[in-house]
């Protein structure tokens, strides 16, 4: 038997994938339902000479990995709702200073302490809008173990490519679910290495002067180039500036480097979308139920399709608009009050044809739940 096949939790898949991607430094704080990630990191990282730190809270966990990223390492932290709330200021710092890092949020029910051991998808908007100030950010998600692996690796790749924090938004259900994972052979998924400056020692290095393609080559703390990093608006030297031209240039750069590449960042799966009359749009654990329903109804000849989103932010509006054009109506399936629903309605030409199938009681939305909503919309009764 191929020993690369494992039967493990989604959280453990995330660990396998992070190590595959070259993770060397992890700092975290225990919180349900993400704790298994920290536990596995504590076990695995020192085996390969990496470092695991249990910090005093989630704030310091994110701060520590940002520091470690600056010395040239691939870094990650993992948390859940309350911890993710605490991380917002440091997250904004990573956005402003353009320091690559991956933050896993294994969603639970909220707000506040909420439902620590139950599923929820209520953090979609927080990942996009949690920090103060204008910005853009990359948020990925996945519904099954093979995709959790892929998206975790992609999260590290995007973090390096765009010099930005990337949020991997999992949920309690997929995080704790055990299913088969076929660990990809080393080298079968492309890994993005950190882009380092070619500027030689003794020649001025401008840490915040983007190349023509918008990318900023980095220099590790401890190498020859010494520069300043600050959360204030800063010039090409990394020194604080309130010059309106510099402020304008930096905010445009921070937003544009992600929004202008949204088509490159968009990850999604289409199931029976081509001839679909009714479309489901879903992600994470909810997409498992949506897919089950689609496959089930297809066997009975009903033309159902599913667009599973794996990139939540920047929101793939063009793709959503395109697939919604040809269908009679669309149902967004999620476990919140309609956070992705709002985005879909903004993206499409006919928002009145977009409906919501949700559950907000801590239980996984089932295929039957979705089917019941479809029946109501189709006028077939409950």
């Amino acid at each position, binding site marked *: 038997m191929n020993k690369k096949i494992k039967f493990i939790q989604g959280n453990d898949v995330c660990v396998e994938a992070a190590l595959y991607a070259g993770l060397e430094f992890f700092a975290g704080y225990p919180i349900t339902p993400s704790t298994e990630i920290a536990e596995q990191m504590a076990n695995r990282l020192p085996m390969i000479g990496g470092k695991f730190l249990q910090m005093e809270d989630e704030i310091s966990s994110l701060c520590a990995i940002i520091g470690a*990223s600056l010395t040239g390492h691939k870094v990650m932290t993992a948390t859940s709702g309350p911890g993710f709330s605490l991380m917002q200021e440091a997250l904004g710092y990573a956005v402003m200073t353009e320091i690559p890092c991956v933050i896993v949020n294994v969603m639970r029910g909220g707000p506040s302490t909420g439902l620590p051991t139950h599923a929820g998808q209520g953090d979609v908007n927080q990942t996009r809008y949690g920090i103060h100030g204008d910005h853009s950010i990359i948020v990925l998600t996945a519904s099954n173990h093979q995709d959790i692996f892929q998206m975790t690796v992609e999260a590290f790749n995007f973090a390096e490519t765009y010099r930005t924090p990337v949020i991997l938004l999992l949920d309690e259900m997929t995080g704790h679910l055990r299913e088969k994972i076929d660990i990809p052979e080393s080298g079968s998924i492309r890994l993005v290495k950190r882009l380092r400056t070619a500027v030689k020692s003794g020649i001025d290095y401008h840490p915040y002067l983007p190349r023509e393609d918008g990318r900023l080559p980095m220099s590790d*703390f401890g190498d020859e180039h010494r520069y300043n990093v600050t959360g204030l608006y800063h010039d090409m030297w990394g020194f*604080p500036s309130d010059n309106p031209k510099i402020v304008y240039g930096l905010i445009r750069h921070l937003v544009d480097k992600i929004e202008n590449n949204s088509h490159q960042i968009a990850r999604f799966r289409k199931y029976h979308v081509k001839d679909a009359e009714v479309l489901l749009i879903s992600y994470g654990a909810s997409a498992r139920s949506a897919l089950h329903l689609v496959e089930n109804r297809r066997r009975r000849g009903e033309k159902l399709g599913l667009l599973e989103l794996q990139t939540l932010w920047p929101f793939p509006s063009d793709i959503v608009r395109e697939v919604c054009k040809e269908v009679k109506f669309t149902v967004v399936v999620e476990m919140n009050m309609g956070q992705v629903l709002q985005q879909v309605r903004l993206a499409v030409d006919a928002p009145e044809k977009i409906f919501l199938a949700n559950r907000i009681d801590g239980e996984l939305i089932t295929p039957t739940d979705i089917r019941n909503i479809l029946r109501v919309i189709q006028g077939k009764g409950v």
Partner: protein
Amino acid sequence: MAVKDYIRERFFPYMWCAGCGHGIILNGLLRAVENLGLNKKDMVMVSGIGCSARISGYVDFHSMHTIHGRALAFATGIKMSKPELNVIVPMGDGDALAIGGNHFIHAARRNIEMTAIVMNNQIYGMTGGQFSPLSGYGAMGTTAPYGNIDHAFDVVDLAVAAGATFVARTTTYHVHELSDLIQQAIVHKGFSVLEVLSQCPTHFGRRNKIGDAVDMLKMYKNRTVRIGSDKKKADPDLIERGVFVKKDLPEYCREYDQLILKAGQKK
């Protein structure tokens, strides 16, 4: 290497007020680094937010101006991921002991090798003179217009109790002692805490009727004594200066190296 080679001249003059003590601390630090003959490439300075935090921009080290209170957490990530670096973390009193109090005690508890300098001016200067956890009972501030009813931390006692393995105190009046203690703190293999009383004539001195910068420096001269001085017995309110604790205990990064060896055997 001359002291001027350790600064980024491009970014001067600095933004501190006339008479501020923080420039004296910068001077003491640069002289300490010069005396030790340290290579700039190996030096990292991580600061938080506030007047004190601006110090990191002025030194020609790898420098990081972070978020309020969390400098030690960022520094912990840097040190752990590259232990050969020499990490210095200057913090203000509010930065280190109010918003950053938790990180302060936990960094001390871990005994991770870095130099924490508490630039204690007893006030939030940058926001205009609010009382801090080191202002002291009865002090006046814009948020203590009737006199402060909060009691102050003793930074030295707190650092010792939390497990720091080098703990010292001095003032901006005692410039040679300042530079000497920073040197000792830098070479110490463990978590070092140095409290430096630093005058803020603009906010603390003025609001508390102590006078200008010179008056405040005179106060540091007259109201502090070396540890063990007889004067302290006669006047218990005098503040002691010097090295309170200096001990060798296992350092965090070296402990982690041992842990890696253990994990390697398990593999």
